């Protein structure tokens, strides 16, 4: 008889049991630990922290474990946790010029103060599967070259360019309140602070495709990777009762400053403009693509005409969030039979009137097609 909608509770319980079992896999194989994930799947952890907008390696690693490696699901878990946290204070803006550098490259100058520091990068590796890792490859032993550079000796490329006036100045207006997309609904047109927050939380794959599209002619921005730097920066807060800044810890971030050619407009002389990307951890692809899209979204501000998807802020900002997007796409799994019943009725009625009209016209009607 009619059982389609019965048994929901039991089915959910059973599904969750199966999920727990599937997550664990073969019990004969050792279970992953949180520290293994945070140490050895570091880039996945960085991505989950970035898109989850919560800097906590252990929680991100836990989310990855619980999500069975599904990164978007892990971001969702971390966000849902983050939203319950009290806000104890607001940090001062981090100073990436004072970064303890692990990696720093510029594509615009062959050499520059502080030099080019490759750091731990996939770049220039040959993508050959390393079968030595199957049995547990040992890292090359011996002293590693020290790459930590003195921050003062590594000025930002954008500061070097800016000194000559070739690059648009970017000065913080600290009197302006900073938006918070987790506490205020997004409204359009959006200011750059809000846009950058959306991009920072935005899905890496979506932004990658959009950034790529600007390189293929859909909203060209003439970008140069002015500088990419990765390393640790201090986070400081000013507790009200103290009145001065104290260092509460270090975080690792990746920053990308794109330098984009700009021919000038009525109000601006020709100069280079900026696209900015910042992400937690070692998230270079994300920072680069964020910078590309940031610059594309400045098209209107710089007097250009918005023609390409990457330049359209409603399109980009309304759709870049993977948690919102996956939730809504996957909600199609939920029952829709009430609406579908309505559509069935409509389509049947439309087909009937179509057939009646055809019969009246004396035209040949298809047989058996009800």
């Amino acid at each position, binding site marked *: 008889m009619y059982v389609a909608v019965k048994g929901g509770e039991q089915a959910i319980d059973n599904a969750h049991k199966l999920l727990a079992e599937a997550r664990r896999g073969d019990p004969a194989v050792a279970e992953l630990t949180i520290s293994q994930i945070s140490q050895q799947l570091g880039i996945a952890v960085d991505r989950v922290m970035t898109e989850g907008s919560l800097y906590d390696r252990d929680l991100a690693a836990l989310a990855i474990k619980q999500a069975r490696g599904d990164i978007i699901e892990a971001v969702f878990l971390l966000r849902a946790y983050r939203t319950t946290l009290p806000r104890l204070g607001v940090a001062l803006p981090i100073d990436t010029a004072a970064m303890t550098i692990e990696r720093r490259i510029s594509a615009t100058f062959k050499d520059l103060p502080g030099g080019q520091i490759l750091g731990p990068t996939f770049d220039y590796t040959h993508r050959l599967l390393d079968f030595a890792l199957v049995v547990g490859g040992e890292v090359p032993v011996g002293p590693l070259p020290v790459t930590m550079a003195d921050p003062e000796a590594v000025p930002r490329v954008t500061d070097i360019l800016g000194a000559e006036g070739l690059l648009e100045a970017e000065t913080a207006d600290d009197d302006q309140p900073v938006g918070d997309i987790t506490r205020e609904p997004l409204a359009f047109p959006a200011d750059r602070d809000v846009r950058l927050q959306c991009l920072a939380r935005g899905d890496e794959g979506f932004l990658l495709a959009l950034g790529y599209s600007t390189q293929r002619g859909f909203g060209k921005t003439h970008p140069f990777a002015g500088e990419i730097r990765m390393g640790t920066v201090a986070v400081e807060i000013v507790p009200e009762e103290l009145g001065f800044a104290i260092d509460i810890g270090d975080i690792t971030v990746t920053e990308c400053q794109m330098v984009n050619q700009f021919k000038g407009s009525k109000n601006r002389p020709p100069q280079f403009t900026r696209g900015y990307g910042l992400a937690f951890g070692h998230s270079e692809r994300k920072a680069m693509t964020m910078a590309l899209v940031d610059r594309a979204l400045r098209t209107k501000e710089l007097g250009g005409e918005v023609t390409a998807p990457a330049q359209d802020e409603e399109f980009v900002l309304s759709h870049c969030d993977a948690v*919102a997007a996956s939730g809504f796409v996957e909600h199609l799994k939920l029952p*829709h039979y*009430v609406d579908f019943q309505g559509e069935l009725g409509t389509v049947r009625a*439309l087909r009937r009137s179509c057939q009646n009209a055809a019969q009246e016209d004396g035209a040949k009607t298809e047989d058996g097609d009800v």
Partner: protein
Amino acid sequence: MSDILGGYNFAYLDEQTKRMIRRAILKAVAVPGYQVPFAGREMPLPYGWGTGGIQVTASVISADDVLKVIDQGADDTTNAVSIRRFFAKTAGVRTTTKTAEATLIQTRHRIPERRLTEGQIIVYQVPNPEPLRWMEPRESETRKMHALLEYGAMHVKLYEDIVHFGRIATSYDYPVRVNGRYIMAPSPIPKFDNPKMDGMPALQLFGAGREKRIYAVPPYTRVESLDFEDYPFEVQRWDQSCALCGATDSYLDEVITDDRGGRMFVCSDTDHCSERRAASDEAEGDGIRRPVEEEAAE
């Protein structure tokens, strides 16, 4: 209740957030049909799965409320079960499957068949709060259109339906005008349910979590489904009656029974159906009440 989830506030959301949402609800009630932006939170359930409705429910629920949650008219559909459990766990409130018993009803895609009464609140889960979205994808534009009462595009769309198909081809999420002013998306309820919204004694609240909008229809407010004088609004009708309870006046779901075209029609509103069956069992005098729906309260 002892098994309320520890470490979280009553009904999950913190009181500041609830206050922010209640302010949005008050504004929504004051301006019927107007979409109030609110700072929607990330919920532990996915966007598109009722996060807007859940936030509204969490903000208005109190310990003595009796909650009913339905999806497609049924209390036992998986997502309804999941949301009901969420509130049983985070607020410890009593839950019910009976429309008459509930003080608060969260719904997806249906309005119960039984007429709701004063003092009840019905919370709709809304995927797309903007009725003009399919004509104009830009939020910045649609907000202007609402402000300027620029609803021509909607009427043209309905008119084009008539020209193409000889009828208005929208069968759910059928646009309504609230209190003679705002055009509003009733959420994807079948148009069969639209007339129930008109002059409803209960308070109707709408939550769209992903889109961060709340809107409302206060009790006894005029809600008209858009139509034309020569093409008046009509609701769905069936040639069949419910195969279980014999109802001829309820919204029916089609259930496929075999792979040779066999099908039956049953009430989409499971409480309505089981109540009718219980009543007819009693009338037949066998004295045995056969509860078809088990109590969801645990």
